[in-house]
């Protein structure tokens, strides 16, 4: 059983970058992959996504770059102080090299910076936090940044009304005496094809047939495009997330209902409401940003904190966060922040300019 505890580490700040362009699911664009199975109004009502931030030009690293510039300035961190940069994304700039290496140079961080990419989706921010916390708790490094998100698609394609684009950054510090982080992590690879991009890896090489639209459970998709077995993912989410939260509470001996916030991966409203209901948590303890931003993959937990809890992080705040999805992979983390700093949301236009400096 994968339980972990890392002490002497604290989450001190967060920022998020999103495209300035807003797609509205009640007024679908020609490029939106709208299902004929149900009306747009029913999708918004049941799935809980009205708007999504979408870009056709800005990569995940572009969104993370601008969020990081903002957070560094707000926290007054010097660039030479950043010892590690971990990027969680499924939409990297290049198949290789790692995008974190490119960001090290673009952000002007020192050549002594530890950089890695982690390829995870919905559970990714919690796994990234786990990696950063484990590095920092050694005391060998003092400051680290976790970037997480997904953005621009790898090919011009119809876009799902569920998913939005975002890039986030989370700042953590080595702080002797800090309570640190507790984790529960799990994996079920038997569900590997529940959310999958079938072609473009080495198992199924990219070929002309990868670009042909074909019928699958969640609509008409190309084989270089993510597809999802929605019902299986739904069943997985509503059973696995509550169990993981109960398990971490039991293992570390705390009452999860006493926590200030449970921030769930923003999967869809039906799923998240069901998880909150099973845990008997009131809506005000389970913030959500999917109505305006959609499901933003590994960015969804930090984006929810940035957009929904900005004025609510003074003093000590106890967080539980649970990510679950593609893999299938899941992880829950418990931590306490003290006067955590949250930057204003950074909006980036299609030319790559920050519009609300």
């Amino acid at each position, binding site marked *: 059983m994968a339980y972990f505890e890392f002490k002497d580490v604290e989450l001190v700040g967060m920022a998020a970058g999103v495209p300035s362009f807003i797609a509205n699911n009640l007024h679908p664009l020609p490029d939106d992959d709208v*299902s004929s*199975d*149900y009306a747009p109004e*029913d*999708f918004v009502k*049941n*799935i809980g996504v009205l708007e999504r931030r979408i870009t056709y030009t800005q990569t995940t690293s572009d969104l993370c770059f601008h969020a990081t510039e903002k957070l560094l300035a707000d926290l007054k961190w010097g660039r030479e102080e950043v010892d590690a940069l971990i990027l969680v994304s499924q939409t990297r700039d290049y198949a290789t090299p790692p995008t974190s290496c490119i960001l090290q140079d673009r952000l002007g961080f020192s050549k002594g910076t530890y950089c890695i990419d982690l390829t995870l989706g919905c559970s990714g921010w919690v796994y990234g936090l786990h990696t950063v916390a484990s590095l920092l708790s050694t005391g060998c490094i003092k400051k680290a940044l976790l970037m997480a998100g997904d953005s621009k698609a790898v090919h011009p394609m119809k876009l799902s009304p569920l998913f939005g684009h975002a890039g986030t950054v989370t700042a953590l510090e080595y702080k002797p005496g800090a309570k640190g982080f507790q984790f529960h992590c799990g994996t079920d690879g038997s569900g590997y094809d529940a959310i999958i991009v079938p072609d473009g890896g080495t198992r199924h090489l990219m070929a002309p047939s990868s670009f042909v639209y074909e019928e699958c*459970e*969640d609509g008409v998709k190309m084989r270089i495009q993510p597809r999802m*077995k*929605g*019902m*299986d993912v*739904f*069943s997985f989410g*509503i*059973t696995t997330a509550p169990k993981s939260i109960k398990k971490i509470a039991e293992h570390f001996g705390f009452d999860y209902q006493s926590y200030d916030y449970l921030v769930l991966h923003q999967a869809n409203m*039906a*799923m998240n409401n*069901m998880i909150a209901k*099973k845990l008997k948590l009131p809506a005000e303890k389970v913030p959500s940003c999917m109505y305006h931003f959609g499901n933003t993959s590994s960015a969804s937990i930090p984006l929810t904190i940035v957009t929904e809890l900005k004025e609510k992080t003074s003093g000590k705040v106890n967080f539980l966060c649970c990510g679950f999805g593609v893999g299938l992979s899941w992880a829950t983390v418990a931590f306490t922040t003290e006067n955590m700093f949250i930057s204003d949301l950074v909006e980036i236009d299609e030319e790559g300019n920050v519009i609300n400096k």
Partner: protein
Amino acid sequence: MKTLDEFVVLFAEQLDETDPSNVTAQTKFRELEEWSSLLALSLISMVDEEFDVTLKGDDVKNSETIEDVYNIVVSKK
């Protein structure tokens, strides 16, 4: 364990547009005009909540009647 009749009532509660009096154990639910993948999620939620059973997508897709779904729930109990 709830009976088939009780299951039919719970199933009918998930529907918005179909008259509950027209819903029986033999109703071919996927042929209902209002049936959609969104309603399938409601069904999975209801079964999870009322029976503590996890239905998979294939369980729903391979069932023809409401009784077929009930039998899967019973077999997983």
